[in-house]
């Protein structure tokens, strides 16, 4: 609290309100939104707002505390909202929200989680007022909740447990900018939004909606019934009074139900996600009194898009093992060590022999002995220690980037490994974007829980604050999407297979392979910001053996021989086999698809270390699935 005030005096002027999950409900082991509203009626104050999530069992000794924190600045008589996205793994421990000023806890609140968790995914109706009737008719396998728009997540991964989001089109304008961005990203990654048109079509012209769904309004149409819904969900909607529906057109959309030329239910894909637009007001009669609503919503849920990302399922443990093997720290060479010790002992023996002989040169040899000791200490430092271990901390990163068809985001899984030989306080910034950060625990460690850390939520992006022990490792996993960095096409005619691609990355793609018709072929490296076109004779492709153990061996040997950077070589040696087998098993039955695999010697996220400066290396594996057009 304010300077000079004891914490308790300041705490009395503070009040805290919160909204956890969706209308107080959350799913275990899923990211959930948490809004904390702080009101300060006292003097201006600065503090650190901490949200502590505890999991694990005291009996098994694996109690783990995840701390999410944000710096708060509360002027006098102010109300501020702080949004977190947290992952709760257990309901047996209370959730703690507290305000800390240095070592003083000035405000703390514990929340019993037991009554709040659900095992079902959410169907969220986001509106300031939703009739309970609507929630009652939503599919049984979902947990229906009404959420005030202001409590919707501010991060895309806050929608982790949401299978269906229902809102009126004009609700979009009520969202904060962060909320709208989060919603858009969630949709592009496979989210599902049902937008009700309502009768206020002025809101349909707003930029936010137009960005998501380019709706062109032609006017209203008055109807008495919607027989087209019979074809959609086996129940016709008939009203006792005439009602209005919007007559709209949406570019590149698919009409699921229409009355004559008026679309009633329109579906449009956005990235991997899907938006369904309803041309009628779902909160008003006759829809709100329709007895077919349950069937309608069941059908709506069933048209949710199935996501088919070309994700390579490489086990995190294997990636961590490979990253450990490729870490940029090593012990001094054993042979050099023996040589050093041997030479030292020879010199020492020589000098000792000389100084035991009485004579005028004894003093000179004594000085020589001391000098020799100093020289060997310096050589040990400069020759054995500095090249190997002077950097007492290092990091490496591995990013797996799955690129799919045009118009869909590329999806990245990024793992950062931080290795320390000494106690090391660290802060890692990952840039301005928000990522779900998960600590990973290597199976090779005896520890039962990851090292504690604080995920500091700042306006400039998330920051991991922690302290590494001696001889320890810390792994963090982040997921994010980005605009596809590769574009192009693959085409096959009678003679050639043509691959035209554009590498928008600022890095070269090296050690590239393509997988087509059950064969792996090595292709040239693709330079940064270039658009090469590669033509392969089909005859040459057929000369290559169908992928088998020998071919696998050949490719791995090629990587071993041609890998230049040790980190790249270590990762390729450790991961190539699993990767190639995964591609072969997944795509051998899809002759119309080509898989492109390339390596980038850089990470797509550049972590910035604030308190320490470990040496580091990054690596990205790009995996791109593209359909092959066949022309004669």
């Amino acid at each position: 609290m304010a300077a000079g005030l004891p914490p308790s005096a300041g705490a009395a002027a503070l009040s805290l309100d919160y909204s956890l999950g969706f209308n107080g409900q959350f799913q275990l082991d899923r990211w959930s939104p948490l809004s904390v509203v702080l009101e300060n009626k006292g003097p201006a104050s600065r503090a650190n707002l901490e949200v502590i999530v505890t999991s694990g069992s005291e009996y098994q000794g694996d109690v783990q505390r995840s701390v999410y924190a944000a710096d708060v600045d509360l002027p006098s008589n102010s109300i501020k909202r702080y949004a977190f996205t947290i992952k709760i793994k257990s309901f047996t421990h209370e959730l703690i929200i507290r305000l800390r000023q240095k070592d003083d806890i000035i405000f703390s609140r514990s929340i019993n989680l037991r009554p709040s968790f659900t095992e079902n995914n959410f169907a969220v109706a986001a509106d300031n007022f939703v009739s309970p009737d609507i929630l009652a008719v939503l599919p049984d396998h979902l947990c229906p909740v009404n959420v005030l728009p202001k409590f919707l997540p501010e991060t895309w991964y806050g929608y982790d447990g949401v299978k269906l989001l229902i809102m009126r089109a004009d609700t979009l304008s009520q969202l904060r900018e962060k909320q709208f961005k989060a919603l858009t990203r969630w949709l592009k990654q496979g989210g599902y939004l049902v937008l009700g048109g309502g009768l206020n079509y002025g809101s349909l012209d707003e930029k936010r909606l137009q960005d998501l769904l380019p709706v062109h309004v032609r006017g209203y149409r008055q109807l008495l019934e919607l027989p087209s819904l019979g074809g959609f969900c086996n129940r016709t909607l008939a009203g006792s009074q005439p009602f209005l529906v919007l007559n709209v057109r949406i570019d590149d959309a698919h009409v699921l139900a229409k009355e004559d030329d008026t679309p009633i239910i329109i579906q449009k894909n956005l990235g991997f996600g899907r938006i369904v637009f309803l041309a009628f007001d779902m909160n008003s009669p006759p829809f709100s009194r329709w007895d077919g609503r349950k069937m309608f919503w069941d059908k709506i849920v069933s048209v949710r898009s199935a996501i088919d990302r070309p994700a390579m399922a490489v086990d995190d443990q294997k990636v961590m093992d490979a990253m450990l093997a490729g870490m940029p720290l090593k012990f001094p060479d054993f042979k050099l060590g023996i040589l050093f010790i041997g030479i030292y002992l020879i010199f020492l023996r020589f000098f000792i022999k000389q100084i035991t002989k009485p004579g005028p040169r004894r003093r000179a040899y004594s000085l020589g002995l001391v000098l020799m000791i100093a020289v060997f200490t310096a050589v040990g430092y400069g020759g054995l220690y500095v090249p190997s271990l002077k950097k007492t901390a290092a990091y490496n990163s591995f990013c797996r980037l799955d690129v799919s068809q045009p118009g869909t985001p590329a999806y990245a899984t990024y793992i950062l490994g931080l290795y320390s030989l000494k106690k090391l306080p660290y802060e890692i910034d990952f840039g301005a974007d928000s990522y779900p950060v998960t600590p990973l625990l290597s199976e090779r460690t005896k520890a039962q829980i990851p090292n504690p850390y604080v995920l500091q939520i700042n306006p400039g992006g998330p920051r991991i604050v922690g302290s590494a022990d001696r001889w320890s490792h810390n792994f963090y996993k982040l997921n994010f999407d980005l605009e596809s960095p590769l574009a192009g096409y693959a085409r096959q005619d009678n003679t050639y297979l043509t691959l035209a691609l554009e590498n928008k990355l600022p890095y070269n793609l090296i050690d590239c392979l393509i997988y087509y018709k059950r064969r792996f072929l090595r292709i040239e490296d693709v330079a940064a910001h270039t658009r090469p076109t590669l033509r392969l004779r089909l005859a040459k492709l057929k000369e290559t053996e169908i992928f088998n153990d020998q071919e696998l061996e050949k490719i791995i040997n090629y990587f071993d021989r041609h890998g230049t950077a040790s980190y790249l070589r270590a990762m390729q040696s450790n991961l190539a086999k699993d990767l190639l087998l995964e591609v072969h098993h997944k795509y051998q039955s899809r002759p119309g698809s080509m898989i492109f695999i390339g390596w980038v010697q850089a990470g797509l996220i550049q972590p910035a270390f604030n308190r320490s400066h470990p040496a580091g290396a990054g690596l990205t594996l790009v995996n791109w699935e593209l359909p092959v057009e066949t022309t004669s």
Partner: protein
Amino acid sequence: MRLYYLTDESEKSLAPFFSERVLAAVMFGVGVVGVFLIVFWPRRPLSDAIAAHQGPTVFFLTAAATLILHSYVNLCCGAGDMVRKGYHIIHYQTDKPTYEKEIDFYRYGLVEFLWHALILLLPFLPLLSLAAFISSGALLTFIMAVCVLYTASLLCRLSGFFVYLIRGRASTLGYFAARSMMIFFVFITLIFAPAVNPLHVLYLLHQDAAGIGGSFAVYLAAVMSAVLVLIRVNGALVRRHINKEEQSRSEVQG
């Protein structure tokens, strides 16, 4: 006053700096530590150590070997065992008094012991520092370990000298008593007083445990107290010997 320990290599000097036997013993000690370093050199990849959250033990083992060897050499030097051979089996009738016994301890013996213990430690330093580098120990940790080695060897030397002053260097009982004192200090205290045990402190330093500063301070305070007590006692014993000598000389002259 002449620095006999630098110039006189006869039996009159307890442990001459240029004594072939002393230097050969140090050479042997350094060789053994070198072998330790080679045997316990971490040959597994560093990533395995990081994965297992367990650093190499080479520094602790090398420092422990140095502690035992260096302390023993100093014990022998203090007890005067390094100049004559076979003294503990055959009782020599002519155990000549040494300069350390004849000159005031604070002006001669103590100065010699402080310097000699340090100088004998120097040849171990390149190997110890290399072991510390491999274990990625902090410079402060290394300095603390060297302090432990130095203070332990000084204590052993002073206790050896104490036995020498009491029993002479030709006594079999003295021979075993001196070694028992070293065994007690280096090994037995590990069981009932680990706070003052140099091996235990070296192990804590190897672990770089939290609060090692406190343990180190306790060890240093205890060992330095023992050193100070031995300095006082040895000083008193040397003074008594000098007085006795002067008295008998004056009686002869009278």
